[in-house]
């Protein structure tokens, strides 16, 4: 009897193992290729150059082994590289420093269900549904028409106006960003706590600052971890606005890297730029470790430690 039961359990364990293996094997292979190998390949490319005679990427010779990294850091210290970083910081900070607090306040008002909150929620979520591309192009056509009607031409290309017009877009679309995530995290704040505050006559502002923000601090922390690394990676809406012709004074490092891979830049073919962009990507990844850890440490210092 006991032996039969043991055998039954062994058979069941075997069936479970086979089932798990059948389901997971494909995903392990997929991960091995598309994450593990892709990253190793990215590192290899960072130390490679494109040899046109054999049409392959070959490792750089020992005396030029770090050439792609040297190119990346050389670009960073040129005035052009500095401008890329400043532009990246500018667009990134609009999103993270200006829009993020506003987006939290917006989500809070909707969460408190002030009049028309239901309609507001749907309208604020529409840009995500229509997609960035549709909203950007719609905005571009509208602003161009409005400017032309008022006698301005080339508002998106004139250096004196282009920055403000693109910034206005980034600001406008940044306000409802993360709405559902913020609403979701706010809805988890215990209602007893809010009711207690209401009985004490707490104002909405105080409820937002003293109850809601501390309660959702971990979510805020996650959203802010990339606060400084975004300077390097932010592409901004430049490609959709300008395609390949973004004005020099607006270009970010993210845009430059994308264009380098998409069709080549500075007279170099895209194949020639693969090594450079991989080295840049690796350098940014490595530089981001202390920056992200530092940001996390900073946030931990201010973490009110509210648990619920």
């Amino acid at each position, binding site marked *: 009897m006991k032996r039969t039961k043991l055998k039954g359990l062994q058979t069941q*364990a075997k*069936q*479970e*193992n086979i*089932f*798990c293996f059948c*389901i*997971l094997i494909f*995903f392990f292979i*997929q*991960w091995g290729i*598309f994450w593990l*190998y*892709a990253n190793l*390949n*990215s590192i290899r490319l960072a130390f490679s150059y494109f040899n046109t005679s054999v049409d392959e*990427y070959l490792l750089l010779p020992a005396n030029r082994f770090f050439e792609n990294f040297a190119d990346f850091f050389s670009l960073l210290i040129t005035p052009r590289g500095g401008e890329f970083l400043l532009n990246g910081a500018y667009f990134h900070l609009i999103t993270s420093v200006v829009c993020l607090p506003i987006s939290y*306040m*917006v989500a809070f*008002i909707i969460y408190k*269900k*002030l*009049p*028309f*909150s239901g*309609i*507001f*929620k*749907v309208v*604020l*979520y*529409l840009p995500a549904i229509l*997609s*960035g*591309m*549709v909203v950007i192009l*719609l*905005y571009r*056509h*509208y602003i161009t*028409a*409005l400017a032309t*009607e008022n006698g301005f031409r080339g508002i998106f290309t004139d250096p004196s106006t282009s920055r403000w017009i693109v910034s206005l877009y980034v600001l406008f679309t940044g306000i*409802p960003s993360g709405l*559902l995530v913020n609403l979701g*995290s706010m809805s*988890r704040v215990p209602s007893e706590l809010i009711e207690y505050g209401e009985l004490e006559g707490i104002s*909405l*502002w105080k409820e937002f600052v003293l109850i809601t923000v501390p309660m959702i601090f971990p979510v805020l922390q996650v959203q802010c971890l990339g606060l400084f690394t975004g300077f390097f990676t932010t592409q901004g809406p430049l*490609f959709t606005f300008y395609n390949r012709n973004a004005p020099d004074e607006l270009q970010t490092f993210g845009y430059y890297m994308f264009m380098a*891979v*998409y069709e080549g830049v500075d007279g170099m073919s895209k194949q020639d730029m*693969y*090594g450079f*962009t*991989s080295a840049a*990507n690796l350098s940014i990844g*490595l530089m*981001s*470790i202390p920056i992200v850890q530092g940001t996390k440490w900073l946030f931990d210092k201010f973490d009110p430690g509210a648990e619920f």
Partner: protein
Amino acid sequence: MEKLSFKSKRARSIFAITVWTLILTWCVLFLYVLAWGLMTSGKSDMQFTYNKLGFPKPITNKWGVVRDPGKFQFLENYAFVFESMTAPDSHGARVSFFPMLLNTLYYTLAYGLVAVVSPMLCSYIYAKYSKRVRWTKLVWVIMLVNMYVPLSASLAASINLAMQLGTYNNIFTFIWTYCGGFGGCFLIYYAIWKGLSWDYAEAAIIDGANHFTILFRIMFPMTLTVFWVLYITQIIALWSDYQTPMVYLRDYPTLAYGVFVFNSTVNAAGANGLDPTSVTIKLAALFIVATPMFTLFMIFKDKMMGSLTMGGLKG
């Protein structure tokens, strides 16, 4: 939570009124630009030249001869987009609207499906079997590596890998890239599986069901609401993604890519009296690509917006 009205003292604070007014202004501006775009997409080119912001009105020359009756021409403009919107493939040949539509349908429906089903399966194994089948804990290790190791293959390396694998520029094999089981919806689905009792499965095992039957005929049907919400969310995201087809699938342009190219066109030749470079036609193209997802969202908006939360989804 109870609704707050402006009759309540709390809602009449400067903070609440300021932010509420900001939201109202944002919504009015956004809806205005959207309405302007829709109206302009039905205007004639001449109407737009002479009257960029207002409703169409009759245009006459100095002798009083009507040059434009000032009527909307939605049908002509939208039909013209169907006929003339093309996008180039990698050889420079033009791909017309309907092949682009087919590419888009395949790209959104198939790629969206694998992007949801893959993490669903991996999270199921980890949530329901990791205590008995120890080696499946590897799933969680990979999940953590994905989340915390600050590496991401560069775009260049991804293109290079796709070329090595032969998936570059092949819409049928490139789908493999989207079959990742450890990202995207993994955590959301994991929370759902954890909330489902294993008692149903045990009852089924006693009745002789195998593990595939338990997954596909008992457990999965209980998460259908979540599945549809995630699937629709994926479809919406993929429908308007123009950069992936532009970079990886050059011979399979989608509608979103077509609209992007169409809107970047500055010197195409006109036909049928309509000019593909005109703003009215470009706006019509934008609305053609945006309308299906807008409709889908309006149908499922309560489900989508009500179900999505930070920690997971309500079943």
